[in-house]
């Protein structure tokens, strides 16, 4: 009985992505881009010198060789040389500099 419940739960957990809400599932159903519905981050890298992250929560660490940004899907770490924050607003951050890595959950 107990095991069965566990199994059912586990089966459900496998199907469902962690942190996927009702809105996001609806969005996927209607093929609406994910960053519009819900608050998942959108990372856009333009060339090597510019990374734009939308829907972020805040910066956790800011050094000239590493920037860590908190988002709903975990922490995004951008490493490189001479990193600067070109612009920062409530839901958008542009990182400039020579970028070498964009890491998730770091």
């Amino acid at each position: 009985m107990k095991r069965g419940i566990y199994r059912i739960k586990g089966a459900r957990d496998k199907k469902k992505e962690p942190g996927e809400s009702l809105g996001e599932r609806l969005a996927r159903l209607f093929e609406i881009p994910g960053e519009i519905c819900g608050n998942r981050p959108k990372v856009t890298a333009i060339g090597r010198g510019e990374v734009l992250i939308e829907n972020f929560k805040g910066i956790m660490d800011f050094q000239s060789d590493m920037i860590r940004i908190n988002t709903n899907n975990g922490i995004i770490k951008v490493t490189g040389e001479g990193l600067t924050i070109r612009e920062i607003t409530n839901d958008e951050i542009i990182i400039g500099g020579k970028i070498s890595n964009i890491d998730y959950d770091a």
Partner: protein
Amino acid sequence: MFLVHLWNYIRGYVIIIVTGRGIERFINICSKRQILLWDIERADAASATMKASIRGFRLMRPAAKKSGCRVHIKKRCGLPFFLYRFKRRKGFKVGLVIFSALLMLSVSIIWDIEVIGCKPEMIPEIMSVLNADNIGRGSFKIKLDPKIIAKKIALNVEQIAWVGVEVRGVKLFITIKDSIEPPVLIKNDEAFNIVAERDGLVKKMEVYAGTPQIKEGETVRKGQVLVSGRLESKNPEFGSRDVHALGKIIARTWYEESMPVSMVYTQKLKTGKIHKTVYFRFLDRRFKISGGDVPFEMYETVTEDKMVTGPFGLKLPIGLTVENSSEVVEKQVELTLDEAIDVTIEKAKENLHKRIPADSTVVDEMIKQYEADNGTIYIQVVYECEEDIAGLEPVTEK
């Protein structure tokens, strides 16, 4: 990106140095509070430089307090700070006002008048029409009504088919299409005689059509038929035919003028008093600087323009106009007989020249002097001229 920079420059921004442990926290709080930050650079482990708008900088204080950071201004950039420097300079402000006023003024006046599309000899006539209305270089554009000016020019100047007046920038363009006067038509289907326009002695006749009624060397009276338009055939049975008589009748004519000699002559004498009126001149406008109304009853005025010449022979539109008015007094002068006669002859000649038609040439002049019964001396001047005395008159049926 350039536009963003320009906008930031116009709005004004500050470059600040934030020092403290919680710089990330400071940035987060600022972004949550809608304070725009850009170009954030880490200077070292404990400080960062960034740019913020003036409004943002004012709202920054709570954020700095919360995160335990200190904020210093490194540099103030942008137009507001640049203008702030001039805030206390009164002269600068006055200069700015004067400059803009002068600019407005210079843009709102006519600097040049261009007349296009007409013969050069018509330009003075057109200009005189404009002058009569006080329109010239330097008059205000607002006061000008192109339609009215065009109408005036078309009415007052002969031989104009169409006038276009246009103000383009600071230039007044007057476009003219001149009309060609139709030639005088000889009405060949009507019969005309040639008659004498005035008395004279016929010297030469050139008859192209018609029957001459006189011979060379005859004296004719005014109105006499010189060339008849009726052609009589040699054989009277064929009758006659009326034509338009044509021809040139060159005749000697005389004009005379008699005048009594007066021994008293009114002479205009300068008293030596000179009144100076100085105008400041800008383009065609004059502004009086010194000298009031001329205090003399009679005066002659000599006007002199002194325009300022810039470097390289550049003519500037400003200068001075000096009007020298010298007082004139009429004086009765007793003349000797010879002088009096000379003066009278001059006067008589002057009068004669006004009377002689333009197409005649003076061949000879005679001066006679005779005395009337009461002792006055008269001078008679006679001009002998040569001219075409042919005039036209319709043939009347007899």
